[in-house]
């Protein structure tokens, strides 16, 4: 075919091609750009586009198969019948300074009955009078005719006891702080929390969904490091920083460690880093301080500087429930926002009456009761330290002590053996029980609790039994 092409043909072809090029020159810009776009689009379609998977809807049959195939896990896994929680000691009678287990009386160093208010006749009388007036239950939440005059009285008394503007009571110790934290701290807010706080605080922190910055237990330097880090972040984004609330969540006397919080420095830092302090005085209320008003009294700190103090009526006060005190500005908010307050039945009036009477005793006794308990705590601390083989951490004046065996010997099994041995010698003590999902699970320990009415002989007897137990366990 090529040979048949004449010279004239080639020339005309060349002219055609030239004309084509010329026409490009005259063509409007939009036309050109459109053609270039088309060429690019075609090449993209051919070379680069990945084939899209063809979506296939499940047929009804397939769906049914999936449903039939699905096998759920059992509702709960099988449990170990030897778990200590299923084999607890069952008590009879008043759980006071002594307890009765299986018909045998023993000295009680296990329950949080610091001031020996359990079984006190004065308190029982008031509770009985309350039943005669109000019945047992309150039959409703605070909002729906569950607010009884005796609740208001207790709130006022607690506020006065702590010299604060307002108090608020809850019907359950656990739900107090666990409801308070999420009432204030929301998403985006920051919580600086001591790693050693008790479980209810951990759950409150979790429910708030705020950012949590854990600092090492009672370690001010670590807290300052976190605060300084946050300050750098704040400087980068000052607009955001102006809307982030910050809270410091600490305990006065840590129930998991038996040591007191270095709160003075934290109060100083408060004004530098602009955080609010929520202090949980569950153990320290009624046990620490000249008149039992907790660590703020012990360190002589102005309570106006602490934004909120929460505590429980279940320990020293020997009743049930929890409370918080602080300025009206802070406390009043809980009446509409704290879930455990708004959506739960109110505290049975007889328990409120018992708590009021407990406060009466604390106020009447003034200093003697609290000096005695702090003094005895110190003595017990020294006595235990003198037994070789035990470690007791925490503060001398703490009436709650965590007892451990030295280094590798400290296993839960050995501690349980000690508890059992002590029980056979008529001393009731207990291993501190925790759930395994604690933020930081404390080392196993025996939690000793000092009842203010234990005398020196009884403390001596406890130490003797502990020593004998140690010998038995280690040999």
């Amino acid at each position, binding site marked *: 075919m090529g040979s048949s092409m004449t010279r004239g043909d080639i020339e005309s072809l060349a002219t055609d091609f030239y004309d084509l090029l010329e026409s490009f020159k005259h063509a409007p810009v939009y036309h050109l750009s459109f053609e270039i776009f088309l060429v690019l689009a075609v090449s993209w379609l051919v070379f680069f586009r990945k084939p899209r998977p063809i979506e296939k809807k499940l047929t009804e049959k397939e769906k049914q198969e999936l449903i039939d195939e699905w096998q759920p896990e059992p509702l709960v896994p099988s449990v170990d019948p030897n778990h200590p929680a299923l084999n607890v000691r069952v*008590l009879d009678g008043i759980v006071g300074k002594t307890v009765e287990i299986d018909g045998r009386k023993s000295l009680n160093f296990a329950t949080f009955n610091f001031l020996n208010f359990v079984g006190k006749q004065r308190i029982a009388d008031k509770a009985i009078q309350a039943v005669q007036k109000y019945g047992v239950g309150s039959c409703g939440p605070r909002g729906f005719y569950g607010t009884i005059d005796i609740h208001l009285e207790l709130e006022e008394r607690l506020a006065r006891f702590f010299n604060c503007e307002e108090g608020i009571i809850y019907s359950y110790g656990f739900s107090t702080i666990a409801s308070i934290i999420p009432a*204030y701290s929301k998403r985006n807010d920051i919580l600086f929390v001591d790693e050693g706080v008790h479980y209810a605080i951990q759950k409150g922190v979790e429910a708030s969904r705020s950012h949590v910055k854990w600092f090492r237990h009672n370690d001010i330097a670590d807290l300052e490091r976190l605060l300084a880090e946050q300050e750098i972040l704040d400087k980068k984004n000052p607009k955001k920083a102006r809307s982030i609330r910050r809270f410091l969540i600490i305990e006065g006397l840590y129930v998991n460690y038996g040591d007191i919080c270095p709160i003075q420095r934290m109060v100083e830092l408060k004004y530098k880093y602009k955080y609010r302090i929520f202090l949980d005085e569950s153990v320290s209320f009624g046990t620490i301080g000249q008149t039992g008003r907790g660590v703020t009294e012990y360190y002589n700190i102005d309570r106006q500087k602490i934004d909120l103090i929460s505590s429980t009526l279940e320990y020293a006060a020997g009743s049930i429930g929890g409370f918080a005190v602080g300025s009206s500005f802070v406390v009043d908010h809980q009446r509409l926002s704290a879930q455990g307050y708004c959506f739960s039945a109110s505290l049975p009036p007889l328990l409120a009456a018992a708590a009021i009477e407990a406060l009466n005793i604390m106020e009447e006794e003034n200093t003697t009761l609290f000096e005695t308990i702090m003094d005895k705590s110190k003595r017990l601390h020294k006595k235990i330290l003198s037994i070789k083989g035990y470690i007791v951490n925490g503060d001398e004046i703490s009436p709650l002590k965590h007892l451990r065996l030295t280094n590798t010997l400290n296993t839960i099994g050995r501690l349980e053996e000690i508890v059992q041995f002590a029980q056979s010698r008529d001393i009731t003590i207990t291993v501190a029980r925790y759930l395994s999902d604690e933020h930081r699970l404390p080392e196993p320990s025996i939690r000793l609790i000092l009842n203010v009415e234990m005398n020196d002989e009884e403390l001596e007897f406890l130490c003797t039994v502990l020593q004998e137990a140690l010998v038995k366990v280690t040999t």
Partner: protein
Amino acid sequence: MPSVKTFEKTHMKKEPRGLAHSDSQEDFEETPTWAAVITVLGYALLTALGWLRDFLRNIGLEDKKTAQDPNPKDFVPLYQSYECFYTRNLYTRIRDVFNQPIASVAGATVQVMERLSTDFNWTFQFSGKKLPSINLGSYNYLGFAENCGPCSDQAMKSIETYGISSCSTRHELGTQNYMNDLESLMAEYLNVEDCIAFGMGFATNALNIPALAGKGDLILSDKLNHTSLILGARLSGAAVYTFNHNDIQDLEKRLRNAIIHGQPRTCRPWKKILIIVEGVYSMEGSLCSLPKIIELKKKYKTYLYVDEAHSIGAIGSRGRGVVDYWNVDPNDIDIHMGTFTKSFGSAGGYIAGKKSLIDHIRIYTHSGCYSASMSAPIVFQIISALSIIMGRDGTNDGQKRIQQLACNVRYFRRQLVDMGFIVYGNDNSPVVPVMIFMPAKIAAVNREMLKRGCAVVTVGFPATLLTESRVRFCISAGHTKEMLDHALKAMDEVGDLVALRYSKRNSPRRWHELNRADYDKEYF
């Protein structure tokens, strides 16, 4: 636009024995459009006025009466202004009708403490006067809120024997022999293998759902479930989907989708699915359609958690809650939960079911390790109330109370309906919500009812939908016919005064126009 509900169901099964009533109906009459429009306008007006007053406060023309932050100004505000807008500008106007304190037992009648305010409800003073009123607000369904009689005698005796508290947890030294008595009695009452009791009803939900579900599990929760259930579900770490209130079709659709599609993103199948419903819903007065839910549960191999807080003792011919009402097998429900606060006139809650379940909870419940065990008088009140309900005390007082409650409920509900009020919920539900819709009427109804000697609970936004404010009556076995008549007469007058007869189905009628003989039949 406000959500307008229109559904009406007829129960599939009739109650097997005992009370002579035919079909029971669950009724949610549609909100009249004009009422909805006026209600929304009312809130719009209140909000506009709130803005105006906030503006006046900011420029200093009006006093700021809220408490001020004691911390220096450079702290981040503890509350955002918009967060308290509602409290400051709407709630405070009618604060006197909420949280009214009482000075007596919360029984069938109650002494309401009169409060006066000289500064438009910012502060209150007690006048010292006690207003004796019929108590239509407390959850005293079986009338066990009493300060004399066998229950409180037992409670008082137990204070002498056991003291108030054990100051210890269940896992340590808080298990006293009466706890075992209570748990085995309750298990027997519910006809299940085992039971565990706790010191607070709210915490029973909040602290135990985390022991039952976790990551990789799915919780399907009714939209109107109580806060404690929502909190427990949230703390558990499981995924939580909600379904429309009592809507079986919606539940089934969600169940199917969940099983077919598995977990979001990973598409792994769910480890297990837990349906959480309540027996009687405390704001709607509706009953859960238990047989249908059990059917679904079996079909899709899920687990079922029924919160009988408001139904245990109050519903069913033997007072055993919705299980009794629908006559279903208690073993078809995996987790029975309920409270002792309401029908038993005490405090606390329980979980009951198979022994393996309860053993698991005994070990993993948060409250077992970290909160005080129950107080003796609280437990003895429950034990003696329970013995009476079960007829163990040798009388038929318990059965009488259950029947009295059922009569009272029908007597009261039927008359309200016939007078032309919109009444929500099931015919047999002791929770009787009457719709008032408009925000201003919340205060009017409450104040006017109190003037006429009736202590009632009124609720509005945010406890209900914006347009669905209501007055809620809780009927008790302790109410006599005279008390109920008095309350109905009061409601008749108040309904006339503030125009509450919204119903289109029942023409408005005054109380004296009703044919008394129709209702007296309820009383045999």
